[in-house]
């Protein structure tokens, strides 16, 4: 469904060029949840922006259903790393979620339904009339997720969405993502630098090397499909997988 | 480098447009002479002593007025900000006097001083005073209350508090006020000359216009624009210089 083939990106600016990604190749099947981990600065955001069609690649290509991605595809949603900045501060939570639907010309009754549902599903039914800056960081992040969900995307991209929230909120949001992913059967590419999170969420984990970046390993996570914070994380297999990914990242750094 | 090139392109384009429009008869050349003629007139004007004398007058009014206004405003601002209760007592008056457009004082200036430096100064000082005062008040209010309490608990005198705490904190604000006031002062200096006839660039423009010397009017307006740019650049540089040590500026440069 989503194919990334020999993707490379070098940032060119006068007097300086940064090779952020050397060459990345991997696929994401329809309905799959794939996590990408890698050290900070290895080009995870770059990868995601290239997949989203926001950034032209220097080489290689990204294909969605066999069609090369050249601009943002219509049924793709992104939750940005800087979630606070991705919400329109002059709009209420409701308006933020509704805006993309208006642009898609979704009829008003259906729009209302989608917005209500998605806000309910992230537990923000009551905050609809608030402005983003009246919410906590974790709540803002959930608004961004609700907006993506309401858009009814085929593919959802998430860039370290939980980097800036506390541990408890983070656990809740992780389970929220798992639930939404299962309910909506949306293909998800989830970027993180947290190994535990990657192993806990993913059906596969792609380990990136540090810059210039290549795929170090494409690891199948053979944990039972039902996951929960305490049970899954205390499985011996979870520990093994985590240790494995950890050692690969250490190797990547060295 | 690219930016510079583009900028030059823009300026060249403007000149080309101003040259072509009257030559092609798109506008009446009597009202908009071709750019080359304006520049030629400008070059001619620059060799006359009259223009330089006028410029000297304008800049004198500007500088003296700005200095007076800033001095008064800083003194008033610090006193209002430091003496307890004064801020609240003066705020309604400040809020009322500040928006009075300084040109409202034109008739008064004419009456009191006639067409002379005094008129220019009255308008310039009134207009720039508020710009600086407001900023100083912001600045004094920005003094960290903890730092203020610390200074008091160590028994610093009022004067040392102003010198070592209030003044350094408000300096960036003072400079902002000065930057705004410098532009306003230039506008008002030229206005006084133009309307009241105090000697200077504005009066020259007025004379050129009433004698129908259209290219000269344009040339003098160009001079006014160049001086305006000069004034803006000069205060920016001064601001940088004075505040080189200040974190606010360091951030701005880094960011």
């Amino acid at each position: 469904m989503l194919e990334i083939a020999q993707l490379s990106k070098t940032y060119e600016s006068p007097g300086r060029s940064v090779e952020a990604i050397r060459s990345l190749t991997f696929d994401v099947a329809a309905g799959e949840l794939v996590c990408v981990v890698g050290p900070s600065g290895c080009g995870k955001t770059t990868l995601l922006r290239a997949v989203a069609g926001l950034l032209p690649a220097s080489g290689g290509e990204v294909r969605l259903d066999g069609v090369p991605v050249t601009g943002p595809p219509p049924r793709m949603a992104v939750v940005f790393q800087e979630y606070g900045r991705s919400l329109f501060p002059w709009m209420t939570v409701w308006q933020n979620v509704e805006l993309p639907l208006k642009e898609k010309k979704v009829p008003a009754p259906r729009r209302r339904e989608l917005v209500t549902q998605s806000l309910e599903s992230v537990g923000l039914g009551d905050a609809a009339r608030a402005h983003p800056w009246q919410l906590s960081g974790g709540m803002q992040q959930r608004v961004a997720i609700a907006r993506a969900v309401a858009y009814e995307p085929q593919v959802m991209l998430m860039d370290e969405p939980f980097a800036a929230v506390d541990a408890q909120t983070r656990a809740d949001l992780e389970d929220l993502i798992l639930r939404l992913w299962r309910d909506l059967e949306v293909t998800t590419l989830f970027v993180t630098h947290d190994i535990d999170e990657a192993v806990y969420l993913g059906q596969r984990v792609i380990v990136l090397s540090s810059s210039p970046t290549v795929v170090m390993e494409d690891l199948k996570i053979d944990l039972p499909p039902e996951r929960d914070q305490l049970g899954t994380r205390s499985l011996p297999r979870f520990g093994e997988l985590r240790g494995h990914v950890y050692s690969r990242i250490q190797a990547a750094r060295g | 480098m690219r930016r510079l090139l583009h900028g030059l392109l823009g300026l060249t384009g403007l000149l080309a447009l101003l040259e072509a429009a009257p030559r092609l008869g798109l506008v009446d050349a009597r009202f908009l002479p071709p750019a080359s003629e304006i520049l030629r007139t400008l070059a001619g004007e620059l060799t006359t002593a009259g223009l330089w004398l006028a410029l000297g007058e304008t800049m004198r009014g500007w500088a003296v007025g700005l200095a007076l206004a800033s001095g008064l405003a800083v003194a008033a601002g610090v006193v209002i900000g430091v003496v307890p209760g004064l801020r609240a007592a003066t705020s309604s008056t400040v809020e009322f006097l500040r928006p009075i457009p300084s040109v409202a004082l034109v008739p008064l200036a004419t009456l009191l001083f006639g067409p002379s430096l005094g008129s220019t100064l009255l308008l310039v000082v009134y207009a720039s005073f508020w710009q600086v005062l407001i900023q100083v008040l912001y600045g004094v209010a920005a003094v960290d209350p903890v730092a203020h309490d610390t200074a008091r608990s160590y028994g610093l005198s009022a004067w040392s508090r102003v010198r070592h705490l209030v003044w350094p904190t408000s300096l960036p604000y003072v400079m902002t006020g000065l930057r705004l006031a410098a532009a306003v002062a230039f506008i008002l200096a030229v206005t006084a000359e133009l309307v009241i006839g105090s000697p200077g660039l504005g009066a020259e423009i007025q004379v050129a216009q009433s004698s129908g010397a259209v290219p000269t009017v344009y040339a003098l307006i160009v001079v006014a624009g160049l001086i305006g740019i000069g004034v803006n650049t000069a205060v920016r540089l001064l601001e940088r210089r004075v505040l080189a040590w200040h974190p606010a500026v360091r951030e701005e440069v880094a960011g």
Partner: protein
Amino acid sequence: MKAVRLLGLPVLLVLLWWAVSGGSFYLPSPDRVAVAFAETWFSDRLTGDVLPSVGRLLAGYALAALLGGWLGVPIGLSPRLRATLEPVLEFFRAIPPPVLVPLIMLLAGIDTPMKVLVIVSGCVWPVLLNTVEGVRALDEVLADTCRMYGIRGWPRVRGFVLRGASPQIMAGLRQALSIGIILMVISEMFASSSGLGFTIVLFQRQFQIAEMWSGILLLGLLGLGLSLLFRRLERWVLSWYYGSGAARA
């Protein structure tokens, strides 16, 4: 207590005015100015001079706001256009607006169009340059969000570009307002036969000193009124901005 704080100093100043004005030719006492104010301005001068002046001011200001915003958006959005036009715009901004009055009189005569044009020519630069600056500094993450969710064209300009740049645009409009008042007065001091600026100069020429002061007072009240109105507008348009605390940063 609050009333004392609010009115204490003004009352004191008026009393001081009273005290020093005794017998002075240039400074009539406050009561004489007050009487002159009522007699002068609550008459057909209100409809003949004051309202037309204010009307021209508002017309010129509104035109300048539209023009500045309308040109500022494309310039701010295109780095190349911006680099090309920036020096030209900086130059025009640096020209003190009043010097354009004699020029515009040459081009547009001495009637209402000239006066409105003068106001437009002075007010447009702060609006334009601030709009350019505001649009340039729009948040990239929000820009990406728009691209991702297919928000483009006019909805993008209205919902994202103009709203995101509105704090700077409002700052430009505030500067433009004070320039507009100055130009309204000046344009009427030249070769005019009606209007607020003309009337005040006329009083001065005829040594009607109390009337002249009442005119100064009226201009002050006008400036104050407009700036209060503007502050209302600003609070309303930028409520999200003050709320988010971005204004303090």
